């Protein structure tokens, strides 16, 4: 990092602070609205702070919806999603440090999948999962999005920036390919794992479409589906939705703060820090 003096640091801090304030307004608005009543949210002159703080929205959320079931499903789906993270890392590593037949073709193929408009794939994928008997299973919900070009690409990009000699050293000591991957490469990629981990978490946490399409039973619904259920045909209870959204965001914030440490710990090839 660049060495900077105190004065510059304060200036930067102020600039970031102001910019951050503008950025965070909608987020704060959401959190505060969760403590308002619905008439107050749609009042003619909305205020940022609630006139009267209320916890009724949260209470109603848990009474009306099976939020405990949805929460459990969401956690299961999110955890399963992390298997995909490992698969992405493996593929990214192979593309960065191995020569094999059809390598370029396969990599282009991987990239191409990123460019497929998501709307086209829904029905074919659903029919496929139905054929495999995976409807009404957690696996069916997770499988279509388990690996992604974005993740493979990011890992490949990262592993390419590490010189080959680094791994050669381990191999000369007789380590197997898998040892090199799991014990040398993977630990090195902590910052990328952290970035990907957060993405995987958010993806699983907010997953909406597949839990709905695949499930023939409400027992497989996730929090995000529950949140959408709150939307009425005519008119919506905003306060309730805001409370749901605010409730959902807390775990992500916690995970983010934990993972952020890893992004920052990072690593340093040349050793000096």
């Amino acid at each position, binding site marked *: 990092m660049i060495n900077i003096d105190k004065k510059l640091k304060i200036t930067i801090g102020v600039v970031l602070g102001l910019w951050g304030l503008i950025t965070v307004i909608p987020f704060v608005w959401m959190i505060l609205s969760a403590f308002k009543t619905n008439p107050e949210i*749609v009042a003619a002159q909305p205020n940022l702070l609630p006139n009267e703080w209320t916890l009724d929205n949260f209470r109603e959320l848990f009474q009306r919806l099976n939020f405990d079931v949805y929460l459990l499903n969401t956690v299961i789906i999110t955890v399963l999603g992390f298997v995909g993270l490992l698969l992405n890392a493996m593929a990214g590593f192979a593309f960065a440090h191995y020569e094999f037949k059809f390598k370029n073709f396969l990599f282009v193929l991987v990239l191409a999948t990123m460019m497929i408009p998501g709307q086209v794939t829904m029905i074919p994928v659903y029919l496929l999962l139905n054929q*495999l*008997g995976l409807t009404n299973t957690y696996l069916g919900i997770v499988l279509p999005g388990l690996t992604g070009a974005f993740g493979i690409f990011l890992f490949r990009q990262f592993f390419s920036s590490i010189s080959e000699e680094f791994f050669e050293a381990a191999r000369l000591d007789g380590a197997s390919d898998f040892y090199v991957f799991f014990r040398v490469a993977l630990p090195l990629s902590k910052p990328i794992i952290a970035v990907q981990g957060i993405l995987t978490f958010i993806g699983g946490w907010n997953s909406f479409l597949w839990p*709905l399409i695949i499930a023939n039973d*409400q027992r497989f619904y996730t929090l995000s589906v529950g949140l*959408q*259920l709150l939307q009425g045909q005519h008119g919506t209870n905003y306060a309730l939705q805001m409370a749901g959204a605010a409730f959902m965001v807390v775990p992500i914030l916690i995970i983010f703060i934990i993972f952020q440490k890893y992004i920052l710990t990072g690593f340093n090839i040349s050793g000096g820090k």
Partner: protein
Amino acid sequence: MKINKLMLGTTSLVAMSLLAACGNSGDEGASEGSSDELSVWVMGDGNEVTQPLFDSFTEETGIDVNAQSIPWSAVHDRLLTAVASGEGPDVVQMGSTYMAEFVDAGALMDITEYVEGSDEISPDNFFEGNVETTVFDENYYAVPWYTETRALYYRTDLLEEAGYPEGPATWDELSDAAMKLSERGDNYYGFTIPINEQTFGPMFAKQNGSPIIDDEGNAVMNEPEFVEAIEYLNGFIESGASPSQDLGIEISQSFGGEGINPMFISGPWMITAIQDQTTDIEGKWAVRTLPEGPVSNVSNTGGANLAVWNNSDNPEEAVQLIEHLTSTDSMLTYYENSSSLPARMSTWDEEPFQDENVAVFGEQLENSEHMPVIEEWDRVSQAYISSFEQIIVGGADVQETLDNLNQEVQTMID
């Protein structure tokens, strides 16, 4: 190299089948017992609204009901995938505008024999406008469940000042009242023209005698009856009696307080919304039947029906459940939980429907029609919205735009 390719193939195959195997083992628990329970799809959050009805059904008959709520935002997507795989529920709630396309796709079961053989769900019990959405080629594919219609909401205090204490009773009175109300100052209006409402313009066209699509299947959306109605609505925009853009404000902000927009046309769900959100105008608003147009004051009806999915294993039980859900008792409970109006006429004799505002909708229902029940209607109405938007927002020529619309709609129907 060949070995490597082979290995690649087998590994992925093994991986896939392993995954599939895991899936199957997990599946068993879920699908177990599906034969002796009925699955039902309801739209929106059904946990509170419909669950009590299913509970009482189980109590009466001993048949278990597994209800799944589908969020409104994803209803069409979910139904599509169900059609694709052929695996739907036993009983499904079908929005009246979806009926034509899903009947055409063969997704719903022909239940004519049940409907004709039952006193409970005989078509005579339900509003004609709703029954029309269940009949295709003289066969019945559903039973009406809840209905809705549109009426005029107005601020009694402001309308009294404008000289219409009972609200406007004709098209002329409506435009006159709106004009007067908009003269209260800048940013005050008289009447709301909802630009994105699919049925709004066509409803006024019907009041002017337009069939929209005639008996021979010709679109008549550029004939004088339709054009005059759109011109009538456009007049509100041109005179400033209605805002030309969606103001993006909630009902409490436009209808409450000073009454920026003191008249609008909407469905029965607005009654509770106004009661809950705008306590400041209690006793200062009312609902009335739509103002009389040159031909009629016909309103638009909609709502939802209950249908049996085509490959249901338990059609008898499914119909039994439909009979239960459309009984007077169930409809009363359902009304209390969701404010959805019963499609069964006799239910309207009950106490909750004697309320002044609710009764207006009962009266209007007797003069309500559904939009043409054709499978292309969704596309037709989207094309209409886009043309209406061009006229209202973009200031396009009415006749010319509707000529284009009519041509477009005709190709859709053909």
